[in-house]
């Protein structure tokens, strides 16, 4: 247990280091890349005085090292600055939008796992059969399809032609269905693909043959013995894949007018709201790092070979 505890502390520390590194990087990117944020925010009609005022307001008139110091101090106090567009605290705005994104991401992820893992395992168990070919083809379609296009096609079919589901907005369960399916499509395919290949690997192992030889029922061998051992690489991929899912969420939210962080990010980019963009990038990276930490912690439960400490 103490081994696990020190592992846990180490990982949580690692998470903070990652988020801090991302924060410092985006801070530097905003200030070092060509373009003057103050001038951009002020707009083309602004006078020099306007630009200077905004520069002071954003603290951009200070030496870089002072700016960095202030930024880090505020960051540790949980202060990500104020929005250049609405003057509200960045963290408050993000907090208000976070539940929508979490709902969408969780729905997409759960759907991806619940469909992708069994589908991949099923295909691997009958490798080379017609069913396997169909699954492999669907998988290829799923990973090649632009998520925003899939979303629009689903809107055309289910919202405009069939009128079964709302085309946009976030109003109850019905409005979650299309965005969640759209977001999950890529992940379903990707997870199915990894599960299939991992499962194929395991099905070639001696102990699987032994189990078959002992007369264990085929279903038990496949679902109990093989899938269990095929899962660890799949779980790793599910964590890494969450990054892709967050990217997909930005696009999906735009398609469906879903009031989450992705939509906020795109709006903030258009509004040149640099403090908000900066804060959102940090929060997205933190979510990604956190999910991967959770994934690594579940590892021990599914793979007894892994021991922490």
């Amino acid at each position, binding site marked *: 247990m103490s081994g696990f505890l020190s592992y846990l502390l180490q990982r949580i520390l690692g998470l903070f280091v*990652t988020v801090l590194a991302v924060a410092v990087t985006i801070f530097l990117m905003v200030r070092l890349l060509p373009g003057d944020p103050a001038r951009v925010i002020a707009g083309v009609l602004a006078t020099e005085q306007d630009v200077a005022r905004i520069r002071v307001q954003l603290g951009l008139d200070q030496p870089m090292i002072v700016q960095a110091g202030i930024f880090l101090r505020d960051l540790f106090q949980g202060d990500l600055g104020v929005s250049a567009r609405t003057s509200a605290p960045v963290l408050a705005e993000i907090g208000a939008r976070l539940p929508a994104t979490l709902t969408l991401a969780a729905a997409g992820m759960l759907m991806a796992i619940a469909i992708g893992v069994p589908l991949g395992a099923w295909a691997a168990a009958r490798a080379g059969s017609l069913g396997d070919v169909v699954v492999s083809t669907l998988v290829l379609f799923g990973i090649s399809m632009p998520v*925003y296009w899939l979303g629009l096609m689903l809107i055309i079919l289910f919202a405009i032609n069939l009128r079964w589901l709302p085309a946009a907005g976030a109003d109850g369960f019905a409005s979650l269905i299309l965005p969640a399916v759209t977001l999950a499509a890529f992940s379903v395919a990707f997870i199915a693909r990894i599960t299939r290949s991992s499962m*194929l690997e395991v099905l070639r192992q001696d102990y699987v043959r032994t189990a078959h030889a002992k007369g264990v029922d085929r279903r038990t061998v496949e679902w109990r013995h093989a899938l269990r051992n095929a899962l660890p690489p799949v779980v790793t991929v599910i964590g890494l894949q969450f*990054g892709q899912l*967050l*990217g997909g969420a930005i696009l999906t939210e735009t398609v469906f007018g879903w009031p989450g962080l992705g939509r906020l990010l795109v709006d903030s980019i258009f509004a040149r709201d640099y403090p908000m963009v900066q804060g959102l990038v940090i929060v997205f990276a933190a979510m990604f790092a956190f999910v991967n930490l959770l994934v690594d912690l579940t590892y021990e439960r599914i793979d007894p070979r892994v021991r922490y400490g």
Partner: protein
Amino acid sequence: MAEVAKRLRRNPSAVAGGTLVGLLVLAGLFAPLLTPYDPTKQELLNVLQGPSWAHPLGTDNLGRDILARLLYGARLTLFMGVFAVGVGLVVGVPLGVLSGYYRGWVDMAIQRVMDLMLSFTTFLLALALVSLLGVGLINVIVAVGISTIPRFARLVRSSVLTIREVAYVEASSALGARDGRILWRHVLPNALAPVIIQATLSMGATILTAAGLGFLGLGVQPPTPEWGAMLGEGRNYIFTSPNVTTFPGLAIFAAVLGFNLLGDGLRDALDPQLRGAR
């Protein structure tokens, strides 16, 4: 080489992918011969038409021929894909070689930077870069290209780590060959196959990312016939003219599918050990 070509011809993925990619290249090359229309010419009396003999895929909200825009857009898609992957290769491969060959602190430093880039996640990194650099073709290529660097650096590093330990490389080193010569003559050629496979698959991924930026309005700007931007503009008309969004999306889908199939086929052909394991 001949052996690889033979295996590729027998591989259904490679053939299907090669065909799709070939069609994409042909569409781009011969766009002016395949359509009489100018992809940016507006015909305001002919807006949002459905498919017809005159306009096989219909016209968009400014009366531009959708087929013409897709054909000319193929050039742009290939251009962005090739150059973005080029950025990833030119920066990522040397970083991977340095990392895997010298190990130690060089490796540590490079890998931490790659970890940092990966913790942004690919799409968000490209999005953040474009929002700071500004929109437009070159910036999209740079932003999407940078976001592919870690993939190449990781891949090459792991191949180099393996090859470095192989007996003939050690022998070459023992005979006094200089690092540069060893890297160039022995290490890189052996790391080539996985890099080619990854580059092909990355073409698909970068096309998706670049078109995604275009869709958001943060990519190549109108009136350039970029597929993602076409989708983004067509969105406003899905209730009345679904063809304006359907066809550009199909084009992106087909292009990405082509490169993914080709990449899978190449993996089977170039890397016999992996065959069937995928």
